[in-house]
């Protein structure tokens, strides 16, 4: 019955206990005795004099702890700020040092180099993509040439584009396995703005679309043919 403190009892249990104590003289006396003894022990338990000046010593000590904690916080924040600044300066420096200078002369030299090595660059590009290096036509890649991917009937396929004056030629390189091949559809053709020439070689279909009258304007001059 007295194992619990009143603060640990629910309202129902407390009411039940009070009802019992109200009707049971023995338990009521035991409870009174229990409370009285507990009260005497509690008084003795708390009879501990606090040393004079202890509060002031505590406050001084706590202020010291606060100062140290504040210094640590400031030092930590300063450290992080310095690190962040160093990273920022590093990135800014890297961006500044690696930023290229616009230079018309250097750009011209680069273009010269591209033209000079164009005939070697395109076969290298083909090789990188697992395509035959040898094309069915002997294109002159010294003229402005672009390589990439283009859409042919909704499929992405490698494409080479050549520009000669007002004329443009696109060379689509399609794997035969990726398309339905019908011989009657694979014929040279002409539309209102361009012509189409087809070549099949080594499992690939080369679809050349060009705006000039003949494909010759995109081929190497006769004296330079390999």
């Amino acid at each position, binding site marked *: 019955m007295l194992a619990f*403190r009143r603060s*640990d009892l629910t309202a129902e249990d407390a009411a039940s206990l009070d009802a019992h104590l109200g009707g049971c003289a023995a338990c009521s006396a035991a409870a009174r005795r229990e409370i009285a003894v507990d009260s005497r*022990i509690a008084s003795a338990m*708390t009879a*501990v004099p606090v*040393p004079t000046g202890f509060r002031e010593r505590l406050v001084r000590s*706590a202020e010291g702890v*606060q100062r140290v904690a504040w210094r640590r916080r400031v030092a930590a924040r300063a450290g992080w700020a310095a690190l962040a600044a160093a990273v920022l300066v590093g990135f800014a420096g890297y961006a500044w040092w690696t930023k290229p200078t616009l230079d018309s002369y250097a750009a011209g030299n680069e273009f010269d180099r591209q033209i000079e090595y164009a005939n070697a660059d395109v076969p290298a590009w083909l090789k990188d993509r697992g395509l035959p290096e040898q094309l069915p036509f002997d294109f002159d890649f010294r003229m402005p040439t672009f390589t990439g991917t283009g859409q042919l009937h909704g499929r992405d396929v490698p494409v080479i584009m050549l520009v000669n004056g007002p004329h443009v030629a696109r060379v689509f390189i399609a794997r035969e396995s990726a398309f339905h091949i019908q011989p009657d559809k694979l014929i040279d053709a002409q539309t209102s703005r361009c012509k189409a020439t087809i070549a099949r070689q080594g499992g690939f279909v080369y679809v050349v679309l060009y705006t000039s009258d003949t494909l010759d304007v995109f081929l190497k001059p006769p004296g330079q043919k390999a």
Partner: protein
Amino acid sequence: MSSLSVRELIDSHYQPLFRYAYRLSGSSADAEDLTQETFGKAIQRLAQLRQAERVKPWLFRILRNEYLRRVRDDRRHRLTPLEQLGEIPQPAADPPADIDPATLQAVLNELDETFRTPLILYYFEDFSYRDIAEQMDLPIGTVMSRLARAKAHLRAKLSPPADASANGRHPPDGF
């Protein structure tokens, strides 16, 4: 919690903390050190306290942990695990009206910390059983059991000896 200043924290709790530390350690110097260390740790961890109304049990818990850390390897104290005592006989009389605080401390010092802490918290700061269980990371049933045994031991030790010549009995001994 950040709105609570350190001075307010100290003013509100330094006296009960010191008394608790004294009853735990039995020494005024140790109690001062423990209280100071408790506030030092509390200031550093103040941001961790989510419920300002739980500051008192939080401080008491820090103090107890600090006390346990200090005495963990200290075997100088002779402690009596109450499990070894068997049945504690009921005292012939209640403790006297004026209990000598020094005698009380001597009896507390004999007890193992696992019994002393709930006893002090029970009498000292009006913690509920649930509070004590929470402080000690124990099931409430274990706290009740330890308290019942520790209280019986305390009362037996604090009560005046029965008239040995009249009934041939002696107060509990061997602590």
